[in-house]
C-alpha cells in the first residue's frame, strides 16, 4: 500500500477515475456472463473479485487519497464491487441450476428393466382356497377346528352312523392302517375319508352350542388322473344349537356362495343320502358364470357348468340325531346342520383348472400366479 499523500489529487490517481472504475466493473460483468461453466466462472471470479483483481487494487488506492476525496472514491468503488458480486452470485446460481438439470438428465435410467433378482414365491391355491372359505365363516363367529388325518374308524364311520356293513361305508374307498398284527387283523385305524370325523370330535370336546368349520386333507383309494386324486381337501361345517332348522342350513349355504361368488348367487338343495345327516341333500350353486342363462340356449353354451345352470358343490343335511346321541348331545333339545365339499372341485371351476394333476404335482408354474391370497 502507498503511503498517504496529502498533496495528491484523486483525479490524478488513474485507477480511481470514474471511467476506470466503470471499465473494471463492465469487464467483470462481461467475464461472468461469458463464463459457460462453473470452472470458468470460478476463474473469472478470481480475476475480477480476488485480492489481485483491478477493483481490489483500486480499492486499496482509496486509502492514499486525501480525506475529502475518500468518500466519493469509496462510494464509487463500493458500488462497482457490489454490482460485480451480484452478477457473480446470479451467474453462479444460473450455472448451478444448469448443472443440476444436466445431472438429472444424465442420471435417467431405463425404468423398464426387470428386477427379478429373487423371483416371487406363492402359497398353494388349495391352501389359500381353504382359508378363504373358512374366513367366510370365521367372520360370522364360527371357529376353525382340526383333527388328525390318521383317524380311528369309530370317529370316521361309527360315530357318524356308518354301521359296519352299511353300503355307504364300503363306498368310501378307505385306506386301512396296519395294526399290531401287521396287515392281518383290523387296527381300527384308517386315513380319514372325509373331514366329518372332526364333527364328532368337536361335539365330544366343545361346549354347546358348536359352530365350527374344518378344512383339511382327506384320503380315498382313487388312482390319480385328470379328475381324481387319492389325497384331496374338504371343508366341513357343523352347527349344533337349539332350534336350528333346514332353513338355517339353506341360509348359511346361500350366505357362503354370496360371499365367495357375488350377491346374486344362490344354492339349490336336492334330496340325497348320507348316514350322518337326516334329512340329507346334495347342494348345488347357481353357475356363477352364466347364472343359468346357458340352460336350453345352445347359442350361449357355458363351459363352467356344461350348460346345466348349476354347479354341484357337495353334501349337506341336518345332523342325524343318532350322531348327536353318540356324541352325548341331547337330540330332544339340540339340532344341527352340517355340510362339506371338495376344495379341488371349487378351485377347478372357480379358476378353470382343467386337470387335477396340476394341483398335486407342485409345478411352480402352476402355483406362482395364485400369489398369497385367492
Amino acid at each position, binding site marked *: 500500500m502507498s503511503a498517504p499523500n496529502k498533496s495528491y489529487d484523486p483525479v490524478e490517481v488513474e485507477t480511481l477515475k470514474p471511467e476506470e472504475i466503470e471499465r473494471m466493473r463492465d469487464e467483470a460483468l462481461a467475464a461472468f456472463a461469458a463464463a459457460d461453466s462453473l470452472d470458468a466462472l470460478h476463474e473469472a471470479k478470481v480475476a475480477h473479485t480476488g485480492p489481485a483483481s483491478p477493483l481490489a487494487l483500486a480499492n486499496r488506492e482509496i486509502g492514499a487519497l486525501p480525506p475529502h476525496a475518500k468518500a466519493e472514491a469509496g462510494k464509487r468503488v463500493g458500488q462497482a464491487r457490489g454490482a460485480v458480486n451480484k452478477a457473480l452470485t446470479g451467474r453462479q446460481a444460473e450455472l448451478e441450476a444448469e448443472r443440476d438439470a444436466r445431472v438429472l438428465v444424465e442420471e435417467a435410467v431405463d425404468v423398464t428393466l426387470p428386477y427379478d433378482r429373487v423371483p416371487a414365491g406363492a402359497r398353494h391355491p388349495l391352501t389359500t382356497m381353504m382359508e378363504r372359505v373358512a374366513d367366510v365363516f370365521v367372520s360370522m363367529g364360527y371357529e376353525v377346528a382340526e383333527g388328525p388325518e*390318521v383317524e380311528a*374308524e369309530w370317529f370316521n364311520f361309527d360315530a357318524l352312523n356308518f354301521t359296519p356293513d352299511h353300503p355307504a361305508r364300503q363306498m368310501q374307498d378307505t385306506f386301512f392302517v396296519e395294526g399290531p398284527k401287521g396287515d392281518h387283523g383290523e*387296527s381300527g385305524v384308517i386315513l380319514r375319508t372325509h373331514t366329518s370325523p372332526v364333527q364328532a370330535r368337536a361335539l365330544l370336546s366343545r361346549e354347546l352350542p358348536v359352530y365350527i368349520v374344518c378344512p383339511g386333507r382327506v384320503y380315498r383309494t382313487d388312482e390319480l388322473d385328470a379328475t381324481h386324486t387319492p389325497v384331496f381337501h374338504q371343508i366341513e361345517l357343523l352347527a349344533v344349537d337349539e332350534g336350528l332348522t333346514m332353513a338355517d342350513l339353506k341360509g348359511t349355504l346361500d350366505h357362503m356362495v354370496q360371499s365367495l361368488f357375488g350377491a346374486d348367487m344362490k344354492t*339349490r338343495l336336492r334330496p340325497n343320502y348320507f348316514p350322518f345327516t337326516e334329512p340329507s341333500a346334495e347342494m348345488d350353486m347357481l353357475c356363477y358364470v352364466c347364472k343359468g342363462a346357458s340352460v336350453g340356449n345352445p347359442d350361449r353354451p357355458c363351459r363352467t357348468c356344461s350348460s346345466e345352470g348349476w354347479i354341484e358343490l357337495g353334501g349337506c343335511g341336518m345332523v342325524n340325531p343318532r350322531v348327536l346321541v353318540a356324541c352325548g348331545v341331547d337330540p330332544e333339545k339340540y339340532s344341527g346342520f352340517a355340510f362339506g365339499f371338495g376344495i379341488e372341485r371349487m378351485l377347478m371351476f372357480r379358476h378353470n383348472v382343467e386337470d387335477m394333476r396340476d394341483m398335486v404335482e407342485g409345478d411352480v408354474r402352476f402355483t406362482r400366479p395364485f400369489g398369497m391370497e385367492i
Partner: protein
Amino acid sequence: MRIPLSWLREYVDLPATQTGRDVQAKLISVGLEVETVEQLGADLKGPLVVGQVLTIEELEGFKKPIRFCTVDVGQANGTGEPQEVVCGARNFAVGDKVVVVLPGAVLPGGFAISARKTYGKVSHGMICSSDELGMGDDGTKGIIVLPPETEIGIDAIELLQLVDEVLDIAVTPDRGYALSLRGVAREAATAYGLSLRDPALLDVPAPNAYGYPVRVSDACGCDRFTARTVSGLDPEAHSPIWLRRRLQKAGMRPISLAVDVTNYVMLELGQPLHAYDRARVEGAIGVRRAEPGEKLTTLDGVERTLSDEDLVITDDRGPIGLAGVMGGANTEIDETDGTTTDVVIEAAHFDAISIARTARRHKLSSEASRRFERGVDPQAASAAAQRTVDLLVLLAGGTADAGVTEVIAPTAPHTITIPADHPDKVAGVAYGRETVVRRLQEVGCDVYGQDELNVTVPSWRSDLTDPNDLAEEVIRLEGYENLPSTLPKPPAGLGLTERQRLHRRIGRALAGAGYVEAPNYPFIGEQVFDQFNLAADDPKRRVVKLVNPLSDEEPALRTTLLPGLLGALRRNDGRGSHDLALFETGLVFHPREELKVAVRLPVDHRPTDEELAPLDEALPEQPRHAAVVLAGAREQAGWWGKGHPSDWADAIEAARILARESGTGLIVRKGQYGPWHPGRCAELAVVVDGAERVVGYAGELHPGVLKTLGLPARTCAMELNLDVLEQASAGLVKSPHISTFPVATQDVALVVDEGVPHADVEAALSEGAGELLESIRLFDVYENAEQLGEGRKSLAYALRFRAGDRTLTVDEASAARDAAVALAGSRTGAVLRA
C-alpha cells in the same frame, strides 16, 4: 338303475307331452338322482322294415365271405319287388325274417343309407345287426333274426321299440326300493300327483303243503322263502322281442327265457329271484349257514371257499347257491342245449347285513346282492314269484303247479311315533298336520293320531326307522326348493387360534421370501431312509404302514416331508425350472411305541372320556412339520450384476424366518444328520419350558445323497417340527423402550481360530458389553493366512451402544466395548485384530 320311459308309463299315466328331461326334473326334485336321460333312436330315420330272405348268393373272391341276397320286404319299398342287398354276416338262412334298412334311412350315428355299389353288386340297403340299430348287446354278434311269425313289410322301428328315453338313476344306499320300476314309478306318481298301478298287487294263492319242500334253518338270515314250480315248459321257447328289448334298455343282456323272466321281474318289482332246473335239484331246498371251508362253484364259474357266516341255499348234495348273491353252477338253467322243462322258482328275503358281508368277502357284487344290501320289500316275494310263474306260463307254455311253499318268520311292521309338527321343526317351515299326514301316506305309510302321529312304514321302506327319516320324506315331497333361507346367529367366536394364525403367517412369510408352496402326498417307500443315510436305529425309520397302499412302492406314511418335497423339486427341475425354492407344511406320522387297536365304541350313548382316550392312543403321533428345499440360483444374475446360488445359509435362514414368525429364539449350531452334508449342516433347537429341544436341521444336502436321488448339485434343505416351535413361542410381543438419545457406534475386529463359531463370539460380546449394548451385527468375515496366521479368521462386528436416560460419553462406550472384547477373549480366545 336304468328306467326306460316307455316301461315306466305302464305304471303311471304320465302326460304324453312329458319328455324324459321333464320326468328327470320331477324325479330329481323328489330326491332321485337322475344322472342322464339317454335318447334311444333319436337320430334314427326309416324306412326300417321286416323282410324275409328269398335267395342267398355267396360271392367269391373277396377277403371275407360276402352274400348277395334278395329279400321280400312286402310293399315297404314301394314296388313289391324283392330288395337286393349285399350282406357280410352269415348267421341267417333263406326263409329267415330279418330287419332291412332301405335307401333314404339314417341309422344311429348319422349313418345315411343309399343304394351303392359294393363287391361288384348294387346293394339297395342293408340287413341290420342289433349293434347297427343301437340296441346294445344281444349276445348274437350277428344280424337280427326275428321270430318266424313276424309280419313281412311292417315297420321295424316300432316292432323293436327303437325309439325311447332311458333315465339313468344313481340310487343312494338307503333307497333299495328305487332299484325297481315299481319303486321309481311310485316316486313318479307322487311327483306328478297321479295314481300308481302297483305291479305287486297280484292275486297270490295261499301257501299249501304240496309245494316244493323248503327248510330254512336260519330264520334271522332268511325271514321269508317262497318256492313255486312250473312244469312242462317248452325248452325251445325264446324271450319275445318286448321282453328282450326291455332288458336291453335296462342294461341287462337277454340270456334264456327263464333267466330273462326272473331278471325282468326283478327289474319290475325289485325282488331278486332265482330259477333252478328242477331236474338238477336233489331233494329239499334248504337255507343255512355254510360250513367253514365248504366249496361252491358259482354261476360265474369261480369256485368259492365259504365261511360260516355265508348264507347258502342247499339241496341234498350241499350248497347250490350263495343266498342272495349268486346261484351255483350245478343247478343252472341250461342255456345251450335247451333241455330245461321244469323249474323251481325262489323268491326269498335275506338279511341285508349278511348279504353285504358275503358279497364283500367274496368280492362278488351282483344285481341281487346290491338289492338285498339296500333293502328289498319282503312283502313282495310272493307277488314276484307269482309274476314269474305267470310269465313263464304265458311265454313258454308251461303249467303252474298247485303247490305253493312259503316259509315266513313272523315280523311286526315298523312303527314310529313323532309329534305331528316334527317335520315343521326340522325344516323351519309350518307345513301343518294335514300336509304331514298326506305326504306320509303318499310314501305308503299308515298314519294315526292327532298331535302325536303313529306312523307304520311300508314294507318296502326298511330305511325309514327314525323320526327324522319321516321328516325328510315330508320335506322332500314338499320340495327342498321351497325351503326358506334364514341365517342362525352363532355366538361371537374367538377367531383363529394362535396355532392356526401361525400356520398362515409361516406360509406368507416363506412365500414372501420367494418360496413356492408344494404340498405332496404323504406316501413313501422305506428305501428312502437308506438313501437318506439314516442310522439303523433312527426313529424316523419307524413308519405307519397301509394295508392297501395305492402302490407297493410307497406303502408307508411319511415321517419326514423331504422325500415328497425333493420329488417335487426333481419334477420341476426335469420340466426346465432350475432355480427353485419350495416349501411345504404338513403332518408327518410316527407310530406309538406300542401299537394298539382302536376299538369300536358303542354309538347308542356318549362314550366316557376313559373310553375315548384309548382311541387317540391307538393313533400315531401326527406333528406338523415345515420344510424347504432349494436348488439353482437364489438370486439371479442380471443387469444389476452377479447372481447368487442358493446355499446352506438360505436353508438356515428359512428356519430363522419360521422362528421369527413364531416369536421364538432359534438356536443354530453345527450339526450332522442323515441326508445333510456333514460340514454344512446346522442343528436347530429351541427352548421349551426351560429345556432345549432339537426341532430340525438345515443346510446343504450330502453330495452322495443328491447323486443317489438324482437331484441337482448343491441342493439345500431345511425341515423342522412346527408344533415344538410353536410351543417355544414367547407369546405376546413386549414393546421395547425406544431411547431418543444418540447412538454410539464401535466397530471391533476379532481374530479367532477358524473352528470357533461366530455364534459363540457374538454371544460373549453381547454378554460382555452389558446393558448399554443396543445391537450387534457381524459385518465381515476375513481369512488370510499371511496377515492372520494359519487356521485363523477375523470377525468384524458393529456394536451400537445407547442409554435410555442420557447421551453416552465416548469413554462409556469404549469401556463397554472393552468389556465385550475381554469376555470374548476369555471365552473364545479372541484377540483384537492388530
